[in-house]
């Protein structure tokens, strides 16, 4: 397949690209002129036509989400960049938060223009302190150059932007919980309706988009929807930053067209499995997505193909396990994460993740019973049907998929009273 010409990560190796002058010298903020010439309705139309879908996990069409908000006659409107990047094994937004902040700011201005939003926030995860400094400095510079503030570059459009710093809580990455958190409350899921398009931040029409989604917008405007939409898969087009991790020769971030296969991702870009070992399992889109096996290597990394395979593209964070990994151990660790992050509001999620951590730990540590596998499945089904928000559903995926594909590993742990790889599940606080 070869490496594609970089679009989103084109500035990755440019020194001082966080400086607005360097950014402008590299063609930055050009999309503003074009957008202001086109007018907001045409920008919205272009984004719709491009087929851009949100890159935060749910893959909702961006143009459609914006349209809902445009139609509401209530002001001010808000645009929020979701920079919470909390899905484990996801590290794709970080370059824009720490190195190339103006690309995000530019994308936000153009998007806000199309939406008619006059206020914006970047909800930044607390774990990225460098990003907090870099983004704030970049915003200050953008104000000085009149890329932000009143009548941007003389146009009839004003937009204010600020950073809101999180403090560690996975659930705050969920769009409605994020808004609660922005308002100074505990970030908890809001039941819809009312929808965010009408009642979002501070009761006003609001769009929440992932960082990578917003970054793409300037490129759609600069290069046109036809060019942008011709990249990658038909149902979910465009360039995508894939973060690959785990047992690989060359883990890291790779910008590739949507629709690259898992095999290409792992063997061509990732350099194959570490130390020449065999592939055992792949988590294609972050810990909340269902595990796959070597049988699935020819599946395309796009929304439709992964869904058809019983998994999901999620954040596009692919984690690879070699034959040296213990699947039971990894599922236990994933569940410990979900238990830790459950907001505690729904009993099935709170109690169910707790219970599953305990069962998985006891299987891993040699005290598992044959009935435990059935219990795990039952708990998963209870969570699946009885929870408010998708966090609970995410917790179910690693368990059900591993029981489907690697049941013999669980059974072996139970039969031989312990982990064949000699691993143990620690007590955790």
């Amino acid at each position, binding site marked *: 397949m070869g490496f594609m010409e970089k679009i989103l990560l084109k500035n990755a190796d440019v020194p001082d690209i966080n400086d607005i002058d360097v950014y402008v010298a590299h063609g930055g903020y050009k999309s503003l002129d074009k957008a202001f010439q086109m007018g907001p309705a045409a920008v919205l139309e272009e984004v719709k036509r491009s087929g851009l879908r949100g890159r935060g996990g749910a893959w909702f069409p961006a143009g459609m989400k914006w349209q809902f908000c445009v139609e509401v006659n209530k002001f001010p409107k808000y645009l929020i960049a979701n920079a919470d990047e909390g899905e484990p094994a996801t590290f794709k937004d970080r370059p824009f938060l720490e190195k190339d902040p103006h690309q995000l700011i530019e994308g936000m201005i153009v998007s806000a223009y199309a939406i008619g939003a006059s206020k914006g926030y970047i909800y930044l995860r607390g774990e990225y302190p460098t990003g907090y400094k870099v983004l704030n400095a970049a915003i200050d510079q953008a104000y000085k150059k009149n890329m932000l503030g009143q009548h941007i570059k003389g146009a009839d459009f004003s937009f204010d932007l600020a950073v809101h710093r999180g403090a560690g*809580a996975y659930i705050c990455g969920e769009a409605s919980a994020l808004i609660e958190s922005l308002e100074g409350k505990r970030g908890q899921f809001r039941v819809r309706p009312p929808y965010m398009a009408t009642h979002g931040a501070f009761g006003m029409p609001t769009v929440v988009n992932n960082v990578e989604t917003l970054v793409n917008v300037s490129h759609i405007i600069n290069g046109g929807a036809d060019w942008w939409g011709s990249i990658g898969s038909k149902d979910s087009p465009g360039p995508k930053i894939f973060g690959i991790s785990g047992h690989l020769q060359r883990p890291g971030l790779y910008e590739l067209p949507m629709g690259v296969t898992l095999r290409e991702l792992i063997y061509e870009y990732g350099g194959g499995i570490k130390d020449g070992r065999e592939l055992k399992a792949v988590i294609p889109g972050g810990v909340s997505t269902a595990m796959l096996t070597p049988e699935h290597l020819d599946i395309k990394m796009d929304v439709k193909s992964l869904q058809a395979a019983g998994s999901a593209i999620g954040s596009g964070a692919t984690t690879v396990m070699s034959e040296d990994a213990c699947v039971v*151990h990894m599922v236990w*660790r994933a569940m410990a994460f979900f238990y830790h992050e459950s907001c505690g509001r729904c009993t099935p999620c709170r109690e169910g993740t707790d219970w599953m951590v305990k069962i998985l730990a006891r299987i891993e540590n040699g005290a598992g019973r044959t009935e435990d596998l059935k219990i795990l499945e039952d708990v998963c089904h209870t969570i699946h049907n009885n929870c408010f928000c998708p966090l609970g559903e995410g917790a179910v995926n690693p368990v059900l998929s591993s029981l489907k594909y690697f049941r013999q590993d669980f059974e072996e742990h139970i039969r031989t009273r312990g982990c064949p790889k000699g691993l143990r599940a620690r007590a955790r606080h």
Partner: protein
Amino acid sequence: MITLSENTLQEIERAASKYVDRKSALMAALWAAQAEFGQLSPDVIEAVAEVIGVSSAHAQGLATYHSLYWKKPVGKYVVMLCTNIACTLMGAETLLEHLEKKLGIHEGETTPDGMFTLQEVECIGSCGNAPAMVINETFYYDLTAEKIDGILSGLR
């Protein structure tokens, strides 16, 4: 009751000016207070709540909701080792044991001299360079036991 420094108060007001409702600045205020006092004890939280104009219970509830607000005293250096899946696959658990031995404490504890707190954390967005850890605001990547020894002796 504790009083917040002029600096912290200014920072809180700067944050509050960014929102239509000053309650939104509660998170920023807790960050600022933590930077001043090193932790968010109940009286620090109470002082923050008063400045923002929310109940102490509300501020307390928010502080306990988030893992990066310290509710008890921490060491001069907070060593946060990621043990989420990418890091665990690359050996983070062995490194956690190594750190526990080296520092003579368990995960979650602080050394008696007040130098180090050891914490196991969820993904810190460094999965391509696993295992990874953060000490205060500095990230360390592609860790090995030897690398950790070097980093710790550099801090002592």
